[in-house]
């Protein structure tokens, strides 16, 4: 019998090695194994034989840990989708293809910049089209990496073509607010288009959408890191080159735009190949920033309500509040994507609910102020875009708050909350597209 115990311990230790199987799962599996052994010895097998059969019936441990991992992380669909239950494809770094696309994008931006003569000459067309020189390359990178079929690539190219046509064919008034709005919303639309190759053309899967949300959050972190590093590098270069008489401004003009463009793809490559590292960073970052933002929101509301300034926002302040709300929504979304869906409600979830409710209240206040302004001063492109955004945010926040509360009181699962987010998210993409395509003609491109 002791020999049996020893071997069960060995099997258990082996299973525990896998990172996807947690302690309670191992306990369950061990209990299963013991029950199986007991049954088999009752039928007449010797303990050794019983152990052998029981372990074999349990299945290969790495298969098992793969299945558990697939359950617990939304990511592994990528490795499993083509291997058909076979070996796991290791996430190779494959930096060369990333480099090619990054260089291509950088070159495109550089050529565009030189043609436009920026920054010596004002070139609003360059700013409008900037994302068209970067994001198609990102989409191409993912299309290549996911081995998208030709037909799917063509489907993917359509929105880019339409965007290019719309952006350049519309007779924008120079420096008008529609132009600025379009320039700001176009990257958002194109980012949603990049989701198509990222998800390998499967748009409806909740897991894949959640994965894309995770990707966006992590990409942002990497991009900020690269930008900071690049900024330091450029500053030092400028200082070094100053005494030599080389015009550091020109150097920066030459280096910065291509660098920023290439970094978009490099950051994406980093997310793809260094998944494990950021999986540890993400929860920590959200744990850090969500409470801070919650406190800030509550303070803002208290101050504004207390001073009675609730109705008297000026346009700049409204813009700042809108940005704040978008940031909070992004943070909440990222927090949801980074959280283990099978964990029970914790204090972090409560803080997140506070942040969501405060954002909701703020959104209502902002909406009220905005409607008052529109009532007084009429519709303008900026106000319309902001109004639409606020309404969409309101609906999203209401849904999130409601489902969060139900989750915290144990009347619903976390899965519902996740699904609300992934179902609702495309609406922002549609709205951004509407702002780009429909809004300008509506306001005569002013």
């Amino acid at each position: 019998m002791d020999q049996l115990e020893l071997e069960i311990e060995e099997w258990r230790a082996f299973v525990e090695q896998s990172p996807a199987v947690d302690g309670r799962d191992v306990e369950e599996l061990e209990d299963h194994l013991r029950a199986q052994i007991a049954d088999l010895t009752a039928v007449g097998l010797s303990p050794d034989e019983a152990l052998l059969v029981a372990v074999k019936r349990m299945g290969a441990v790495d298969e098992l840990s793969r299945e558990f991992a697939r359950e617990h992380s939304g990511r592994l669909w990528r490795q499993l989708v083509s291997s058909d239950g076979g070996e796991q494809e290791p996430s190779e770094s494959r930096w060369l293809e990333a480099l090619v696309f990054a260089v291509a994008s950088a070159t495109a931006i550089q050529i565009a910049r030189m043609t436009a003569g920026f920054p010596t000459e004002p070139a609003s067309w360059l700013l409008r089209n900037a994302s068209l020189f970067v994001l198609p390359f990102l989409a191409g990178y993912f299309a290549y990496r996911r081995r998208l079929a030709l037909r799917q690539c063509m489907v993917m190219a359509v929105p880019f073509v339409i965007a290019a046509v719309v952006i350049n064919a519309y007779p924008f008034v120079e420096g008008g607010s529609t132009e600025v709005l379009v320039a700001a919303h176009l990257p958002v639309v194109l980012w949603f288009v990049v989701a198509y190759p990222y998800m390998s053309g499967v748009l409806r899967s909740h897991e894949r959408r959640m994965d894309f949300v995770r990707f966006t959050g992590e990409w942002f972190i990497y991009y900020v890191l690269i930008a900071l590093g690049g900024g330091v590098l450029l500053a030092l270069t400028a200082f070094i080159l100053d005494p030599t008489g080389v015009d550091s401004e020109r150097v920066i003009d030459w280096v910065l735009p291509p660098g920023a463009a290439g970094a978009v793809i490099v950051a994406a490559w980093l997310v793809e190949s260094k998944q494990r590292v950021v999986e540890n960073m993400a929860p920590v970052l959200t744990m850090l920033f969500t409470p801070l933002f919650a406190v800030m929101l509550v303070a803002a509301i208290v101050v504004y309500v207390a001073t009675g300034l609730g109705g008297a926002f000026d346009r700049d302040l409204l813009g700042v509040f809108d940005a704040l709300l978008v940031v909070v929504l992004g943070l909440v979304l990222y927090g949801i994507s980074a959280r283990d869906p099978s964990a029970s409600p914790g204090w972090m979830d409560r803080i997140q609910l506070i942040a969501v409710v405060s954002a909701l209240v703020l959104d209502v206040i902002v909406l009220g102020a905005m409607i008052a302004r529109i009532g007084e001063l009429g519709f303008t492109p900026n106000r319309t875009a902001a109004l639409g955004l606020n309404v969409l945010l309101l609906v999203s926040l209401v849904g999130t708050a409601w489902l969060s509360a139900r989750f915290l009181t144990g009347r619903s699962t976390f899965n519902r909350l996740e699904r609300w987010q992934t179902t609702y998210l495309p609406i922002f993409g549609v709205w951004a597209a509407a702002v780009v395509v429909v809004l300008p003609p509506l306001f005569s491109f002013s």
Partner: protein
Amino acid sequence: MNIDKDLVAASATPLVLAILAESESYGYAILKRVREISDGELEWTDGMLYPLLHRLHRLGYVTREWRIPSEERRRRYYAITDEGQAALAEHKRQWVTVAKALGDAWGGGDLLPLAFGGA
């Protein structure tokens, strides 16, 4: 009989939910019941049951709690929820539809009356 992998995978969820609808149970007992019901034809890899149970729990179809049955080591018991019942009903509808189509295709239409109670 060597049953196709896809069939085994497709029938796993409705089978587990149906067994839990009969009464709450724990992993090993569920597996024994599956073998019992299928006369030993359905040979699942034991370990694969547990990720499935995790998934059902995550979707809210089952609840789970640890219990200590009479002086043995503690064990996780699963019970079906209302949503699980609804999901089971949906699975049933889908299987009946498919079975009817197959019955018609194989000539007769009366191929699976026992399994589906004459539906």
